């Protein structure tokens, strides 16, 4: 799976539109993931997972930041997220299936807040991008 030039443009455009809200969207993505896919909570036993939790806000900001970093280096996502990839492989070891669940929730958040931005083509590009990020983060697992 390769990101075409169109895909990269589509993804950059989406992130340009959401730039002011990225942190909020990160937190909302996580909250929706925990509600929709309860097993994902097993990775956060140390978190307060109630709506509005400061920990979810902080972690949502981190997740959004990583996605933005990937977008800013979209020609070399593996390079940009190399340290995060190491972290996930060595320490966090989040099962690979969960990245798709997070991706689904991020798409839902974008759809909710910017429905007209998420045309079918943009939806496809964003889905591919999120897949690519998940692949990078799990690339060193074994």
């Amino acid at each position: 799976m390769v990101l075409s030039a169109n895909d990269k443009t589509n993804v950059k455009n989406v992130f340009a539109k959401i730039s002011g809200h990225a942190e909020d969207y990160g937190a909302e993505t996580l909250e929706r993931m925990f509600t929709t896919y309860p097993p994902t909570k097993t990775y956060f036993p140390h978190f307060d997972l109630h709506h509005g939790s400061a920990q979810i806000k902080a972690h949502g900001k981190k997740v959004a930041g990583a996605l933005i970093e990937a977008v800013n280096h979209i020609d070399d996502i593996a390079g940009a997220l190399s340290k995060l990839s190491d972290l996930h492989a060595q320490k966090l070891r989040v099962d690979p299936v969960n990245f798709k669940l997070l991706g689904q929730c991020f798409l839902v958040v974008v759809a909710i807040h910017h429905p007209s931005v998420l045309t079918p083509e943009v939806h496809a590009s964003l889905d591919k991008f999120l897949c690519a990020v998940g692949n990078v983060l799990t690339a060193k697992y074994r």
Partner: protein
Amino acid sequence: MVHWSAEEKQLITSVWSKVNVEECGAEALARLLIVYPWTQRFFDNFGNLSSPTAIIGNPKVRAHGKKVLTSFGEAIKNLENLKATYAKLSELHCEKLHVDPENFRLLGDILIIVLAAHFTKDFTPACQATWQKLVGVVAHALAYKYH
């Protein structure tokens, strides 16, 4: 058997009552074929699927999308009895259509996105969770008779 709370049933029926089955079905199927292009393998006889524009405008895609979502409506009327409701359809998808059940999950995920874009803030986390559960259960029922 899957248990549905009163709240879940309410979230399902209240969303469904506002869904335009024809539009929503057409959009969901079109997006499936665009976002996951390999799903086009089942639709060789649909004519022009060469671009997103072609897919969105394709009358066979629209018609089939409506058919699929109309069937989904049957599931909603029979939440307590999904496996029986979909037994024949499940056999059909296995024996005649040869559709990998993974495709039902993909379509379910796409439907969620379509609903989210349509209902925006009304598509609360609880609503999303309920509907994600519903599409999962429908996919499971459709796969149940596979052998």
